[in-house]
C-alpha cells in the first residue's frame, strides 16, 4: 500500500493543548464580554439612520470642502443639529450629511406662519394643526366665508383663499412650499402644494405641504458650494426607526431562542451550556467592535450579528460532535476527559481553520471593493468569524469541562459491597 501524501498546513496531526490555553482565553473572553456589556449603555452605539431616524444625504461636491463649512451652511439653512462626515477617499469629495429633523416645520416656522395668517385672515383664522406625525405638512383651519347655500360660489371663494394662503406663506412667512418639477424642468405653482378638505361645521381645513428636507438641504448647499451631486438620500421616520429597532431586537432574541432549543435537543446538559456561552460570547464581542470602533449600527448589522451567531454555533457543534464520537465508554473523571477533548479539537483543527479561511476570503473580498454600509457589514462579519473560531476552539471545550467537573457525579462502583439485591436473593 502506497503511503498517502497530503498537502497540509501542519506537518503531522497537531497536538496543541487547547484545554490548557483555553482557560486563559475563556477568562479573557469573559472579561471582554463584560466590558462590552458595560460599555454599550455608557458609550452607546453609533446608530445608523435606520434606527435613529432622520434624513441622510450622500453628496459629492465638485471641489474640496471642509467639514466645518458644511455644518455652517446647514445651520444657515435652519438645521442646528447635523452630522457631517467624509465618505470614501478624500479625493472623491464625497460627504455623508445627516440632519435630525425630518420635517421642515419647527416652532419658529409655525409662529411666523401663524402670525402672517392671523394678520391676513383676521377672525377667520382659527388655528394651525401641526403634529410630529404630519412631518412637513401643516393643517390651516379657516372659517368658511359666506353662507353655504351657494356651493359653487363658496368653492370659488375658497379657491381664492388657497392662492392667498400660498402667497402668504412663501412671501410673508418666508417658508418655501413644495414644488413639483416636471420632466421638462418647469416647476409647478405654489398653490399645488395645498389641498383642501370639505367644509364642515363652518370651517375648512387646508393641508399645506412644505418643502422637503432633502430639497432644503440641497438648496442650502448649492447656494454655498455650487454644483454638487446627490448620490443617495435616506429618510426614515422616527416611528419607523422605532419599529425597526424593536424588530431587530426581536429578531436577535428569536434567533438565540431557536438556537438554544436546537442545542438542548442536540446535546446533553453539559455540552449545551458550553455551546450557549460560546455562542453568546461572539455577538457580544462583535457589538463591542461596533461600540469601540464607532461603526454605524444599522439593519445590515443585525444581519451580520445573526450570521455570526449561526456560524459560531456551527463551529462549536463540529467540535462537540467529535468529542462525543471519541469519548470512551464508562464513567470518566475529568482528568481522563481532558486528553479526549484535546484530541477532538486537534482532529477537527484543520477543518476549523480551513472553513474560517475560505469564509474570510469572501467577506474580505467584499470589504475590499465596497464602501459604506455593506463594507461595515463585511468587516464586522470578518471579525465575527475570527472571534467565532477562537471561541469554538477554546471557550467551548473549556466551559464544557467546567460544567462537567462541577456538576457531574459519576456512579461509584465499589467492589464487594453488599447490595440490596444480594440480600433479597438470600445470598447474605
Amino acid at each position: 500500500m502506497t503511503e498517502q501524501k497530503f498537502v497540509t498546513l501542519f506537518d503531522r496531526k497537531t497536538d496543541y493543548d487547547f484545554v490548557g490555553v483555553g482557560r486563559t482565553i475563556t477568562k479573557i473572553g469573559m472579561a471582554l464580554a463584560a466590558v462590552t456589556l458595560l460599555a454599550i449603555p455608557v458609550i452607546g452605539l453609533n446608530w445608523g439612520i435606520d434606527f435613529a431616524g432622520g434624513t441622510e444625504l450622500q453628496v459629492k461636491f465638485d471641489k474640496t470642502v471642509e467639514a466645518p463649512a458644511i455644518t455652517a451652511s446647514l445651520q444657515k439653512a435652519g438645521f442646528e443639529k447635523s452630522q457631517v462626515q467624509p465618505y470614501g477617499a478624500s479625493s472623491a469629495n464625497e460627504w455623508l450629511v445627516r440632519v435630525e429633523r425630518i420635517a421642515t416645520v419647527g416652532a419658529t416656522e409655525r409662529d411666523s406662519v401663524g402670525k402672517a395668517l392671523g394678520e391676513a385672515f383676521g377672525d377667520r383664522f382659527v388655528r394651525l394643526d401641526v403634529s410630529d406625525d404630519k412631518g412637513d405638512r401643516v393643517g390651516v383651519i379657516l372659517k368658511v366665508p359666506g353662507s353655504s347655500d351657494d356651493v359653487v360660489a363658496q368653492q370659488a371663494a375658497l379657491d381664492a383663499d388657497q392662492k392667498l394662503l400660498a402667497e402668504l406663506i412663501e412671501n410673508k412667512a418666508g417658508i418655501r412650499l413644495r414644488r413639483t418639477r416636471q420632466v421638462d424642468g418647469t416647476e409647478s405653482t405654489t398653490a399645488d402644494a395645498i389641498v383642501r378638505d370639505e367644509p364642515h361645521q363652518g370651517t375648512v381645513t387646508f393641508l399645506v405641504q412644505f418643502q422637503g428636507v432633502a430639497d432644503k438641504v440641497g438648496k442650502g448647499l448649492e447656494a454655498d458650494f455650487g454644483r454638487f451631486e446627490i448620490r443617495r438620500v435616506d429618510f426614515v421616520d422616527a416611528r419607523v426607526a422605532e419599529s425597526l429597532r424593536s424588530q431587530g431586537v426581536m429578531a436577535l432574541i428569536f434567533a438565540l431562542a431557536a438556537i438554544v432549543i436546537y442545542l438542548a435537543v442536540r446535546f446533553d446538559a453539559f455540552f449545551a451550556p458550553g455551546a450557549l456561552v460560546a455562542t453568546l460570547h461572539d455577538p457580544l464581542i462583535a457589538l463591542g467592535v461596533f461600540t469601540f470602533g464607532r461603526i454605524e449600527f444599522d439593519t445590515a448589522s443585525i444581519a451580520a450579528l445573526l450570521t455570526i451567531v449561526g456560524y459560531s454555533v456551527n463551529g462549536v457543534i463540529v467540535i462537540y460532535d467529535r468529542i462525543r464520537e471519541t469519548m470512551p465508554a464508562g464513567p470518566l473523571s475529568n482528568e481522563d476527559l481532558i486528553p479526549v477533548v484535546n484530541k477532538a479539537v486537534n482532529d477537527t483543527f484543520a477543518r476549523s481553520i480551513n472553513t474560517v479561511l475560505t469564509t474570510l476570503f469572501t467577506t474580505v473580498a467584499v470589504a475590499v471593493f465596497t464602501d459604506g454600509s455593506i463594507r461595515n457589514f463585511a468587516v464586522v462579519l470578518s471579525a465575527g468569524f475570527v472571534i467565532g473560531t477562537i471561541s469554538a476552539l477554546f471557550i467551548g471545550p473549556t466551559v464544557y469541562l467546567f460544567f462537567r467537573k462541577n456538576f457531574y457525579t459519576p456512579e461509584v462502583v465499589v467492589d464487594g459491597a453488599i447490595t440490596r439485591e444480594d440480600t433479597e436473593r438470600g445470598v447474605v
Partner: protein
Amino acid sequence: MQNTVWIRLLIVAGLIGLAGWMLTPSIIYFQLDEQQTIEVQQDSAAFKKYLPSWAPESHIVPGLDLQGGVHMVLGVDLDKAISDRARRVSNRLRTDLEEKKIAFTAVDHLADAGKGDRLRATFASTEALATFDKDLADLYGDLAEVGRDGLTVTWRVHPDWVAKIRTDAVDQTIKTISNRIDKMHVTEPSITKRGADQVQVQLPGFANPEEAKALIGRTAQLEFQMCDDESDFLTRLADVPSFATLQTSGYQRSNGAFAQDMYLEFPEEQLKEMRKYLIGKVPSGLVMKYGRLPTRPGETVKWRTYTLKAEVALTGDDLVNAQVAMGSPEQPQPYVSIEFSPTGKQLFGDLTTKNVGKRMAIVLEDVVDSAPVINEPITGGMASITMGGSRTRDEMIKDANQLALVLKAGALPAPITFREEKTVGASLGKEALDAAGKASLLGIALVFGFLIFYYRVGGLISCFAMTLNMVFVLASLSWLGGTLTLPGIAGLLLTIGMADDANVLINERIREELRAGKTARSAVEAGYSSALSAILDSQITTFIAGLVLWQFGSGAIQNFATTLLIGVISSLVTGVYFTRVLFDLYILKDRDTLAV
C-alpha cells in the same frame, strides 16, 4: 454506489439543464444594451421578443441599490379615514332627517373626541326619536349605538365597518398609487402592502423622489364627461387604418327613442397609432378618449374609442364613496352605489337633469372605464350604476367590485404620510454593481485557488460543486423573478464561503480514513457517512439564522436572507450529492491513494 454513478450523473446533468433553462432570461436581460433595457422595462411584454420561445419569462431584477431608484414607505392614516366616514354619515343623517321631516336640534360629528369616530344627534321630541328608530335606524347599519341620554343619541362607526375600512383603505391606496405610477412610465415598479397600514413603493431608475411624492400624493384624475352619441363624424373619416373597425351599437333611451353608440374598435398594441391617426380629425367641442373592451381569456385585448363632449362635468374631488350593493326587490341586479360631496351633489343633479337618457363616461386617468346610461335625474347626491348586460350574476358582481374600486381610486381614501424614503442615484448604483462584480471575482478566485491547492482533486471537485451551487441559487432567484441587491450578492458569496464547509469536512474525513489505511472507495464511503451529520448541523443553524432574518427583515436584508436560505438548500444538493457523483467517477477504478 459505483454502478449507479452514471444514472446519478445523468440526474445531475438534468438538474444543470433545468438550471440553465431557468437562468436564460436573466442572462439575456443583462446582455441588453441601455436602449433595449429601457424599452423592456417600460413595457414588460416587449421582453418576450428577445427570448427564445422555450425560455421562461421571469428574470432576476436588479435591486434599487444596483440600478438606482426610489424606495418609499407610505403610511395610510386609517384613523382619519374612519373619522371622515363618521363625518360623512353625520352629513347624511342630517339630510335624511331633514327630508323625512324628523325634528332635531343638532347633528354633530364629534371630530375632536378620541378617534373622531363618533357622532351625536339630539332630537326635538320623543316622537321624533321614535320615528327615527322606526323608519331610519335600519338604514344606518354602519353605525353602532354607544349611548342614549334622553333625547340625545351617540353612535360610533360600527366595528365591522371599521375593520372593513382598515383593509379597504390600504388596498384602495395601493390601487390608486398603481394607477398613477402606470402613468409615470416607470420601469417595473413594485407596490406592495407592508404590515397592516403601510404601503411600500419601489421605483427603479426614477431619480427624483420629490416628483414621485408629488405624483403619488395628489388626487387622481377621475372625470365624468358626457358621451356624444349624435355626431357621426366617424363614418366620414377617410383612410381609416386597417386595424380599426367601425362598430355601432344601438341602445334604447328611457323615453323609448333609439340611439347609436358609434366607435372604432382596434387591438391594444395600436393605441399609439390610433391616437396619432385621430389628431386633428375630431370636431371641436368634442374629445376622443379610449377604453378597454371586455375580453374573454385567449382573445386579443381590444380597445375602443369614446366620443365625448370636451367639458368635464364633474371630477373625483366631488366623489366621496363608492360601494357595491347586492340589489333589492325592485332592482335585483348588483349595482354600484356612489356618493357625492355637497358640491358634487349639486353639480351632479344639474348634470343628470339636463341629460336624462344620455350616456355619461367615467374616465379614470384619461382612460374610459365605462359609460352607463343616465336613467333619471339624480339630485340626492347618491347614484347607482347598474351592471347591465346579459351576464351571470357572479360576473356582474365582479364587474361591480371592479367599478367600485375604480371609482374609489379616484380619491385617496386617507391621507398618506411618507415614512421612509431611500433614493439611490444611478451613478452610485453603477458603482455598486461594479464593486459587487469585483468582490465576487476576487472572493471566488481566492476560495477556488485555496481549495485546489490544499485538497487537489478533492478541491477541484469542491470547486465544481460550488460553481453549480451559485448557478442553482441564481437560477432559483431568476425563476422566482426575485430581486438581487448588494446584500443579496453578499449573501450569495457568504453561502459559497460557508457551503464549502461541507466539502472541507468531507475531504478531511476522507484523509483520515486514508491515513487509517483504507482503500480509496471505502475511504470515500466512510468519509461521507461520518461527515454527513456535522454537515447537516452546520447547514441547519445557518438556515435558522436565515429564517429569522427573513421573517423580521425587510427590503435588502430580506434579500440577503433569501439568498442565504436558497443557498443552504442548494449547497446541500451540490455539496453532498453532486460531489459524491464526481468522487465516484474519480474512483471508478478502485485505488489505494487519492490525490486529496
